[in-house]
């Protein structure tokens, strides 16, 4: 228990459990299979989007172009299938390659120029979104193959678990391994902690930065394609609304924007909290004119609860250190 208490994600877990229970008691429909299904669907791509941002936060940078990459991949993916009649696996592959290329571009230019990733990805945000609009002229692609549509809709057996969430779960697991158990992952965190120290230690900036951005692009690509599966159409707007949520989840999960401190589990719980809050707003039929206010207050509350735990922990450490 004490070990649990020390974990970054413990407070968030409490928030999730308590709010989940509270909502379930007030509105039993919250735990209905269909609602759980819906919750999992919305978590599925948000989780990947959050991880795509998290890995960049880990190295102390920001990726403003996650949404633009996701959008570009989404329309390439659906466009290839509709216009070029490319088969699904090939389209997926090309989509992933595009995502990684975009990420590589971000990372490469950032490292080579020494300009802050914030500016570089802001510029590439325009570029990727520009290509997206240039290709589509703002018109969606509608002819998504049935297999893709079915994937977006199917549940596993008789459970309320959507097929869609399998990939995010695998990816979250892999990301956890990557950030905690691989040398490259640890080097990324070290780099995020202190660029100067990392360089003196002999960690290669270009390797760390480019890898992180490529992974970020890769994840954004997956998210983009998952959204296509889910929406069953490839609209150029995919990704437009990703930016803030992509930051919100890791930051609610205690990530430090300056870098070096991120946690995969806490980020996942951050995603879950945001999803639960926005679902609660619907379930409780909050008047549309109040929705924004509630949303803001809930986010603050969630963060405060987590913060309170840190507070307690700090107080304990102060007393410990005197003994």
């Amino acid at each position, binding site marked *: 228990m004490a070990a649990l208490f020390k974990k970054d994600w413990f407070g968030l877990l409490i928030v999730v459990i308590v709010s989940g229970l509270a909502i379930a008691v007030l509105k039993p429909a919250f735990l209905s299979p269909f609602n759980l299904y819906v919750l999992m669907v919305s978590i599925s791509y948000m989780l990947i989007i959050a991880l795509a941002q998290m890995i960049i936060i880990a190295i102390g940078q920001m990726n403003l172009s996650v949404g633009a990459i996701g959008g570009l991949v989404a329309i390439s993916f659906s466009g290839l299938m509709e216009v070029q009649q490319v088969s699904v696996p090939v389209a997926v592959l090309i989509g992933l390659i595009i995502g990684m290329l975009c990420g590589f571009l971000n990372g490469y230019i950032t490292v080579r120029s020494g300009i802050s990733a914030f500016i570089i990805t802001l510029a590439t945000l325009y570029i990727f979104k520009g290509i997206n609009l240039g290709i589509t002229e703002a018109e969606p692609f509608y002819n998504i193959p049935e297999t893709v549509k079915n994937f977006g809709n199917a549940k596993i057996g008789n459970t309320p678990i959507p097929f869609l969430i399998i990939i995010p779960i695998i990816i979250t697991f892999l990301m956890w391994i990557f950030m905690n158990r691989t040398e490259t992952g*640890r080097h990324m965190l070290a780099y995020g902690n202190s660029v100067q120290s990392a360089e003196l230690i*002999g960690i290669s900036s270009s390797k760390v930065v480019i890898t992180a951005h490529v992974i970020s692009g890769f994840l954004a690509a997956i998210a983009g394609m998952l959204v296509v599966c889910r929406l069953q159409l490839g609209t150029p707007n995919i990704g437009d609304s990703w930016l803030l949520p992509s930051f919100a989840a890791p930051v609610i999960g205690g990530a430090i924007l300056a870098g070096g401190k991120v946690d995969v589990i806490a980020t996942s719980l951050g995603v879950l909290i945001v999803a639960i809050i926005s679902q609660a707003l619907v379930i409780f039929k909050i008047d549309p004119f109040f929705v924004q206010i509630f949303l803001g207050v809930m986010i603050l509350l969630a963060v405060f609860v987590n913060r309170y735990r840190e507070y307690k922990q700090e107080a304990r450490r102060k007393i410990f*250190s005197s003994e």
Partner: protein
Amino acid sequence: MNEFCLEISSANKSFPGVKALDQATFQLRKASIHALLGENGAGKSTLIKIITGVHKQDSGKLIINGKEETLNNPNDATKFGISVVHQERNLIRRFSVGENLMLNNMPKTALGLIDYNEIAIQSKKWLKILDLDIDPNTLVSDLTVAKMQLCEIAKALSLKAKILLLDEPTSSLSPQESKILFSLLKKIVREEGVSIVFVSHKLEEVFNICDDVTVLRDGQNACTSEDIKNLDRQKLVRLMIGRDEQIVKSTRKNQNTKDTILALKNVKTELGHKNINLELNRSEIIGLYGLVGAGRTELMKCLIGQDKITDGEVIINGKKVTINSPKSALEKFKIGYISEDRKKEGLILIHNVLDNTSITVWSQIKKAIGFVSDGMISKKVDPYISQLEVKTPSNYQLISNLSGGNQQKISVAKWLAAGTDILIIDEPTVGIDIKTKAYLHELIIKLADDGTSIILISSDMPEMISLADKIIVMNNFQMNGIVENNHDYDSVSSKIMEYIHT
């Protein structure tokens, strides 16, 4: 054919506005300990950074094991068996000690994943070698400065390098810790044929362990690979600073005022201090001595209102007061605190010399509607900057580009400029060259003579004994006793040690 494992010939290195190395030459004999000495800013760290591939020389040759080589990054240096402890701490604060030690060379499981058990086991071994009793799973951010430094040394050793570069490894170590380190260094030189470059401002250490000496002055060689046997302290100092060492004699004028300016009575703090009683008179220097971790810094932070005093009385000029922030400490009670951790708490590295030195005086010198200009600031702080002989191309140089010693001078200068009544000075001469150290000592005495009351925290016993009027010995967040200082090293130091161990 070549007895040198590492050579640098006629190296030049410039930074914007500064020529850090000017035709510098350096030769490291195999299986020897080579002292690299010089004043602050002489170019020692720059030389080391060239050897480790962090910087690239503008011209000049780098010869490793007889062959000319080019190093593009720190990893290249590692490949040649060069490992280093930089002057700045380079541990990843949010990682555990063990992981930091093994960061370049992580043990992996069959699956290619990091094996944390193995990390703990291996790192434990290296910690043991330095007599360090730290759990490898401790976070670095929870360590004291001294322990961090020891961890870095352990890390450098763990690479089993043939050439070991130590840039001021002992700057924040206690004599005991240094002693352990030195016997270890001697052992690896003797038994494993390792060659060591040793940078330090503590000349006793140099005479204690080094074989050869190279001295840099303003980036040029003042001497090259001189055998230590041919040198004595006086000669060495003359090589470094171009004149004889001035011995600071504590000739305090008016230390007999009985005008109590600050008193703590039965103070308790939220950090765990208990029963703290202290009386500071005008013009008095009180020393706080204790081993690292005794809670001296913390006590002072409570005094200036950074952390809370929970019980007891603080009396300033006879009046009971509450100090709730460093701001009111400075503005209302004229108390200043010179931090021991200049990078984190003392200076603003991304700002220039002028802004850093003047940070404490803006409120004082402002005119109507808060007007403060660079000119006004310069007028106020320039005297202190030049008095301390800060080595900087201009007042607009960024602090991060100054050498460590010069950074320390700035963090002192800003408090001189503030003109406080009570000055708390925490480890003032860590990493400071002997010339400046002597100067700082004179300065502290002069300040006290001129009416400032000083609380001096130092882990440097000789420094403490030469400066303080009385010495309070602390251990474990409590006061163990007070020693009246008669400036006789032997008797006072044995009394202090006695108190520490009670």
